[in-house]
């Protein structure tokens, strides 16, 4: 019988041993080939990520005189201005993220409910500013908000106010400018995740007796949380390291982390201290990402009781 002969090799051994060595060698060959194909990517990652970050870390360990010391890190605890910068950075990041959620969620929701053709037109208006230089947009806000800017001129011409309002060069103007720039980073992932919500789930909600508002609260909103979480993380992390807008809109009054880095390296030429700032920012960002992942990632993907 052909079936019987196929399962035994020439020596009459059971088929479990048939060609095992050749198959194992073949698997090794395939693994080596895949590694070879992967190597350009690995080299690139090593050269542009691992080496610079390692170098940054290395630099941060030397003080101004070139001696190995922890002085650059000790400064975080000793100098009040460092701590103030740190607090400001987080305040700005939280406020901007909050503003983006308040503005972006309704926008993304509207986009998700529009017919496809209308969406592609509306998305252009979301993405268009995205393509415009950050610098240009920031100056545009300055033109609008400054002492003799559009808003103040109009309000004074209308006689609503006698003195120009302090709209530029403060915390609020930094938040306004950054929110404008960050909004697409929240809207795009949020919209993409809202699009994947099954319309039948919402229909089922209503069919089972939930009013439209209740269906939104109990079904649509929870299902949009993963997208919201990824948008929030992107915006928050980008805010932590943001430079141009706070530097221009803050008028020197709102000092964020990245601006402190710029001062340290270009003004005082203290590369060790600047590097330490970079390392701390990186560490804080990674810690936050881990925290977000644990809080939102688990919540977004897992089951949680409604009670």
């Amino acid at each position, binding site marked *: 019988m052909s079936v019987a002969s196929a399962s035994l090799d020439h020596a009459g051994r059971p088929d479990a041993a048939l060609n095992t060595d050749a198959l194992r060698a073949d698997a090794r060959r395939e693994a080596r080939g895949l590694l070879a194909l992967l190597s350009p990517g690995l080299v690139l990652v090593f050269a542009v990520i691992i080496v610079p970050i390692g170098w940054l870390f290395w630099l941060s360990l030397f003080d101004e005189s070139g001696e190995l010391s922890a002085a650059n890190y000790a400064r975080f605890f000793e100098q009040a201005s460092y701590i103030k910068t740190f607090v400001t950075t987080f305040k700005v990041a939280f406020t901007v993220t909050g503003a983006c959620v308040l503005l972006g969620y309704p926008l993304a929701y509207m986009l998700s409910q529009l017919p496809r053709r209308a969406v592609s037109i509306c998305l252009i208006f979301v993405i268009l500013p995205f393509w415009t230089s950050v610098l240009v947009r920031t100056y545009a806000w300055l033109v609008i908000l400054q002492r003799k800017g559009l808003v103040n001129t109009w309000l004074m011409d209308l006689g609503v106010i006698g003195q120009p309002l302090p709209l530029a060069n403060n915390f609020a103007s930094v938040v306004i400018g950054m929110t404008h720039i960050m909004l697409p980073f929240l809207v795009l992932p949020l919209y993409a995740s809202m699009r994947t919500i099954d319309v*039948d789930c919402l229909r*089922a*909600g209503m069919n*089972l007796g*939930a*009013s439209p508002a*209740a269906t939104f609260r*109990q079904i649509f909103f929870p299902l949009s949380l993963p997208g919201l979480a990824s948008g929030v993380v992107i915006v928050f992390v980008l805010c932590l390291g943001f430079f141009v807008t706070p530097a221009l809109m803050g008028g020197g009054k709102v000092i964020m982390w990245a601006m402190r880095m710029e001062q340290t390296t270009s003004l005082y030429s203290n590369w060790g201290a600047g590097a330490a700032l970079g390392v701390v920012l990186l560490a804080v960002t990674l810690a936050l990402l881990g925290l977000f992942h644990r809080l939102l990632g688990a919540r977004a993907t897992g089951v949680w009781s*409604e009670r």
Partner: protein
Amino acid sequence: MLLSLAQSALPIGISGIDKRFGAVSILSDLSLDVAAGEFLTLLGPSGSGKTTLLMILAGFVRANAGSIKVGGEEIITMPPHKRNIGMVFQNYALFPHMNVFHNIAFPLKQRRVSTAETAERVERALDLVQLKGLGERRVDQLSGGQRQRVALARAIVFEPRIVLMDEPLSALDKSLREHMQIELRNLHRRLGMTTVYVTHDQREAITMSDRVAVMNAGRIEQIDQPEALYARPRTKFVAGFIGESNFIPVESRNGSVWYEDSKLRMTSAAPTAGRHLMVVRPEKLRLIAGEPIGDVNALPATVGEIIYQGDSFLCYATLKDGRQLTLRDYCRPDVLAKLPRPGEPITLGIDAQDVVLVADQ
């Protein structure tokens, strides 16, 4: 047991439903009455409007005109969440962020049912669909068949007046689908809720339903009990859509019906004069050896291919006018022994009582 739904089952009166999307008419002047406690199936090809009708019943799609009365009460403008109609969706539409218990408890929560009663009713519903003990499972941990059962439990746990099902079994594999057909039918018999079921699977419709409404191009072609639908199709579409059919052109003149030059023997009265089609199911055609005996119509033909299919065989035969017919019979030894060879002349027999005529369109 859940509370018996039999007393609370309500009839549905659908009349004059019109639905257009732009210039395209989906449903035109559609009327349909569903008796209280009836299992009615809307059967039709895709695009026939059956799902649109279901969506109008559930309140997700607004009709352009018409009336839907449930137990005499007009609901055509009532929002979906107030209709109290259970629905099983094609893709189940279970809430992925809730476990099985919370999915089934959802309609009860909306109705402010107490926690204790909710737990009890969800438990009974789970029991009814044979998912006892799976309340804490996540939806993505369930198999297709289990999801189907959860969707069913969720649709009946709040004791709705009517249950709608939109091709609920189409995502299941064949054997599970056939099993669930029987289970759904039995569940309907136990609970007695008025059910409107949508499918494009004619066998499913025939297996499960009290009555089947065959839909085509936005209209109901025929509504009947499954047996009547199969044995006495009234249009060519119904005959072609339900089961297999041979169509033979015939002509009605002077009070009798003629196939070419021979007068047809039939038990029903001849239809209006003009051209018609005779509908012959493959299993109603017989191979006749020698002279036909009794009230039989005999058609001379030539044997074509014979295809063995295990329990039965298919025999293709060509009439004198070149028309090809299909004959099906069981593989019994006596039949197989007398089977003709391809190319041989044979006589095909159709009993007079099996002659069914439809309009030739």
